[in-house]
């Protein structure tokens, strides 16, 4: 099977306007993936499915990833000349920048015909609040239908052109997206004999919420005339 780099180069040659980035997996598995831009994702997906060399006819898995906003501290070394004429000092400068958050849909593609795979493709939304639309790949691989509904349910990615985009696990009236990192669970903590770790955190939050609000002292009575 072609390596992800070869696939990327072929895609860039076939789709000149598209952006295809190789996302390197630094782990032991080394399963690198291809980041597609949403505008060309549908056309690229059809190409990946129908290309005689790849023939990725089976989408085994579609899932979501939540990347919340992250503060990144970058350390750069700057040499400062010594005014006294000595050797220049090397000073570390720290700069902070905010990496904006986004949601990601990941597809694992295999070829049943050629017995090869997986090729992993990713799509990213603009942000986590209002630009959460991605093109649905269900018209390309029918197997994505339920899994894209699950991503919509748990992460809140809206797949355009999905044939039946409803919640699949939670009820329709549910408003949250439980797999997002900033999801706040309903405060349904109950007393446990040995609360520890995360449960202890919830126990403390519950105790703070359940404690009666401090009563304001009664206003001093007006002096009798």
């Amino acid at each position, binding site marked *: 099977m072609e390596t992800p780099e070869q696939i990327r180069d072929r895609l860039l040659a076939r789709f000149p306007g598209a952006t295809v980035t190789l996302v390197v997996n630094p782990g032991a598995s080394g399963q690198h993936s291809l980041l597609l831009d949403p505008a060309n994702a549908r056309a690229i997906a059809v190409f990946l499915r129908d290309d005689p060399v790849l023939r990725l006819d089976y989408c085994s898995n579609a899932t979501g990833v939540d990347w919340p906003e992250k503060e990144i501290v970058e350390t750069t070394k700057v040499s400062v000349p010594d005014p006294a004429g000595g050797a220049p000092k090397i000073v570390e400068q720290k700069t902070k920048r905010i990496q904006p958050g986004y949601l990601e849909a990941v597809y694992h593609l295999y070829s049943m015909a050629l017995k090869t795979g997986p090729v992993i493709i990713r799509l990213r939304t603009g942000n986590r609040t209002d630009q959460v639309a991605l093109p649905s790949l269900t018209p390309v691989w029918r197997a994505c239908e339920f899994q894209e509904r699950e991503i919509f349910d748990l992460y809140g990615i809206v797949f355009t052109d999905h044939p039946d985009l409803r919640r699949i696990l939670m009820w*329709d009236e549910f408003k*949250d997206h439980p797999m997002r990192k900033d999801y706040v*669970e*309903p405060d349904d903590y109950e*007393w446990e004999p040995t609360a520890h770790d995360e449960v202890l955190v919830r126990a403390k939050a519950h105790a703070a919420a359940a404690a009666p609000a401090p009563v304001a002292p009664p206003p001093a009575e007006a002096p009798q005339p």
Partner: protein
Amino acid sequence: MSDTPVITRQDRDELRRQGILLTSIEEVYNWGRSRSVWPLQFGLACCAIEMIAASMARFDIARFGSEVFRPSPRQADLLIVSGTVTKKMAPQVVRLWNQMPEPKYCIAMGACAISGGPFKQGYNVLKGIDRFIPVDIYIPGCPPRPEALLHGLMELQKKMRGEKLTGPDVPRNKQPDNPCEYPVPEFGAHDLEPAKNPDIWQPPAPVRPDKP
């Protein structure tokens, strides 16, 4: 006339050992009822597999008169909540319970039905069906073996045989202020509404001997 019956249960047992059969309507009624408990054919998760195993030849729940798993709640006496009750499923379970005719009984089978079990800290699992349904027998285990289910059924039969037909100690279904229908929770924006039925369940309070 005193409230204590002239012939007690112990007297009847003693007479029976001597070959004299003396009985009461209450005893016959409870005897018949406790030996034909028809469960609802209803399973939720892996505990249901053990429930099915208990009904098959090896464990043979028919020995206790409970082999007739009814496919309709209108014909069932016993709701075996066998498995994880998700919040999405909870209203349907309560609705099934409401559709069963009195006298009816509920067995919470397995850790999930009792307390949420391994999924207790999850956002989507009910932390015990006793928040909405009055449970008679709790069977711990993950899942409980069929023997445990049979033991739970025998305990339920024991409870049924001890029930009174008249007097202040009548079971739940004969009390005049008994709610025949239990409120079905609604799907809310973040959780079930209400998240529990406070009339039948309150969260446990920590027991601190040093701080009364």
